[in-house]
């Protein structure tokens, strides 16, 4: 790993680089002139330090989760896939460890998304854009791609030199090596993505036998190409121009949130021997993955990765100044510093964080309760619309219903179907036979919906009005669990 010595070396490698940092990535010629901004390529300098170490740890854990999770197994019995986390599109099920989600329960996923969003709000209001800087796939993969780039083409100065150099065999070799490595990583990314929708061992067997469908290959191609384009080429352009989050995350931040901050009162006036601690070495700009100058203050482009903190601390140590000229700090703390007051304590508990946290708790509890009380039976009753009712020869009234019993258990289960009307006579055709009576016993197929045509006949005198309420009750024979669905029974005027 590089240390402070590396900074010196890099300085030597780029003697022609101007000492004065550029204040902005917009080239001077477009000021007031062009309608479109040409892209200034960001040559990100390598850096080491505490933050960088945390970023490597986050990267390893997140990529580890992404690539390992599809291979985790979970035994669900003989008729279900044994992949721990699987979105089984063909089987129309989502498997999350012990939880099995049916298509009509997709609101659980909505709930997870809501939880994620509120969690993001809470974390942002406390620690600024840590999601952007450490956990966002765009950041993680861009970091990985940059590491590969650095390994093949060298650090910032060498890369600038290589890009400026005329075409040569060594340039072509280096560039193609880099892109090959990128595409390999992208393929692994796209390949791992489909494993969340495709049983992993089966996928590799199918792949070896050339039996993977075109749709699957298209998905792999899509995720491979987007990974390659977004992490290899687009990089900070994604955060600045494509992602909506930076545009509205300021609504979650306040003057008490920790954000990456250049401590202006301490640093200014910048420059060697000017009085401030900032020696204007421009390293904070050189290491920035989005190519901004943190000394310009909070900016939309800043992803809060904190690499400038590492870069600056290395310099501060070298020139024997206290570290953290650039640090995670709050607007309140900076105002106190400027006014010469004592640094205020970082406040975790504020109305904003309390509100986000309580919403988070409420939604979590609601979801956990809903999940725990989730029934294993569904009962749907559709009343016939044509005919609305049938008058039988003895004057009694018959209504037809389509009763659907959803058996979410992976074994056949018998149910006793009754109604809330004690006089109602039920009749269900089961193949050639028909079962009749006040209650009928129906056997349901495992793990699916069983549909029954149910005729309910009642004496004319039992139905005094055109429409009376009628409830269907399915009682699971083994456990006695009751599921009720209400409908109506219609009769002539």
């Amino acid at each position, binding site marked *: 790993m590089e240390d402070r010595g590396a900074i010196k070396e890099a300085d030597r490698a780029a003697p022609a680089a101007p000492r004065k940092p550029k204040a902005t990535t917009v080239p001077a010629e477009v000021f*007031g002139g062009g309608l479109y901004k040409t892209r200034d390529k960001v040559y990100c300098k390598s850096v080491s330090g505490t933050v960088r170490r945390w970023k490597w740890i986050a990267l390893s854990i997140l990529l580890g989760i992404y690539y390992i999770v599809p291979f985790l197994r979970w035994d669900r019995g003989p008729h279900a896939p044994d992949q721990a986390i699987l979105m089984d599109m063909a089987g129309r099920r989502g498997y999350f460890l012990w939880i099995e989600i049916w298509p009509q329960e997709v609101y659980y996923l909505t709930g997870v998304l809501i939880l994620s969003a509120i969690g993001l709000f809470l974390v942002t209001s406390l620690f600024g854009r840590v999601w952007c800087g450490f956990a966002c796939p765009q950041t993680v993969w861009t970091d990985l791609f940059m590491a590969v780039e650095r390994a093949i083409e060298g650090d910032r100065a060498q890369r600038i030199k290589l890009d400026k150099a005329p075409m040569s065999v060594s340039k072509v070799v280096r560039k193609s090596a880099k892109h090959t490595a990128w595409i390999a990583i992208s393929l692994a990314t796209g390949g791992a993505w489909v494993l969340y929708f495709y049983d992993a061992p089966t996928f590799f067997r199918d792949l070896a036998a050339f039996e993977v469908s075109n749709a699957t290959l298209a998905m792999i191609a899509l995720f491979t190409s987007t990974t390659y384009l977004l992490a290899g080429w687009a990089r900070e352009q994604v955060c600045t121009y494509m992602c909506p989050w930076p545009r509205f995350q300021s609504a979650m931040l306040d003057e008490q949130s920790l954000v990456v901050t250049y401590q202006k009162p301490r640093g200014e006036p910048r420059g060697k021997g000017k009085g401030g601690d900032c020696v204007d070495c421009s390293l904070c700009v050189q290491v920035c993955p989005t190519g901004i100058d943190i000394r310009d203050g909070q900016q939309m482009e800043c992803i809060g990765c904190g690499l400038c903190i590492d870069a600056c601390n290395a310099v501060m140590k070298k020139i024997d100044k206290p570290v953290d000229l650039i640090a995670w700090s709050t607007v309140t703390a900076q105002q106190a510093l400027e006014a010469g007051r004592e640094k205020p304590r970082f406040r975790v508990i504020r109305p904003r964080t309390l509100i986000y946290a309580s919403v988070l708790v409420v939604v979590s509890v609601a979801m956990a309760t809903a999940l725990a009380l989730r029934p294993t039976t569904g009962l749907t009753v559709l009343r016939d619309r044509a005919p609305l009712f049938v008058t039988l020869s003895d004057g009694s009234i018959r209504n037809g219903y389509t009763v659907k019993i959803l058996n979410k258990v992976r074994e056949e289960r018998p149910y006793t179907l009754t109604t809330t009307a004690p006089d109602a006579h039920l009749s269900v055709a089961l*193949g*050639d036979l028909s079962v009749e009576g006040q209650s009928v016993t129906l056997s349901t197929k495992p793990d699916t919906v069983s549909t029954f045509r149910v005729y309910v006949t009642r004496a004319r005198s039992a139905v005094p009005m055109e429409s009376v309420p009628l409830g269907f009750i399915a009682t699971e024979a083994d456990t006695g669990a009751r599921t009720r669905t209400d409908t109506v029974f219609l009769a002539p005027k």
Partner: protein
Amino acid sequence: MPTKIEKDAVSGTMTTGHEWDGVKELNTPLPSWWVYTFYATIAWAAVIMLLYPSVPALSGYWKGLIGYSAREEVMQDMATARQARAATFQRIETASLADIRRNPELFTVALAGGKAAFGENCAACHGAGGQGAKGGFPSLADDTWLWGGSLSDIQQTIQYGIRNTHAESRQSAMPKFGIDGVLTNAQISDVAEFVLSLSRRSTDAASATRGAAVFAENCVSCHQENGTGNRELGAPNLTTGIWLYGGDKASIMETVRASRSGNMPAWVELDPMTIKMLAVYVHALGGGE
């Protein structure tokens, strides 16, 4: 009018030089790759327009270079579906009605096919779901049948119809007792009162007793002594609560006076397999025997 390009004091961003009533526009240009992407989508649209049917003309339209047609695609899909169903249809064609009814797979297909054919051919009179309609179109969902409710009875009725010109058609005719002068108005009133008594709705016992004699003399040959009817002749059961032309006294008198004799066409234009599926469907509407 572009005036002076200057640096905005608050944001530090350059202005475009445009100013409206003192409001100046900041220059925050789009990245150029963005506009190139936009141009690429325009080019893409042009290519799609060339390849696929797109621009309408006064007559016809641009058909596209690759000859794609959504209509043809549907036709192909339908042909594929027909092919996929052919085997099942063949089994339905050869299987007996009872076998179709017993086999869950054939039964499901027959129900679906029968429902579609019913909607096209039968629902106009019998109503969707076979609930029947006023004016002589019987309900097919209740438990009474004029000509029989077994699978084969239903098949026979659908195939050849009722009181039409086809040689195999179900035939019968009730005399026009009033118009033809067989019964007087008083006799008609009495016999109607007796018919009401068959379903225990008579309010005039004396008239009903007089009507019983009229009934015995004129009606029992078809409707039977106890009024339960005769399916061989399509003579309805008069003892139930179901009345095709109305069960009140006036309606019954009108039926006796002028007779009704509704009819149904012979569905000779439907192929035998469709008739079979229709029979299975109607049988399953709720009244099949």
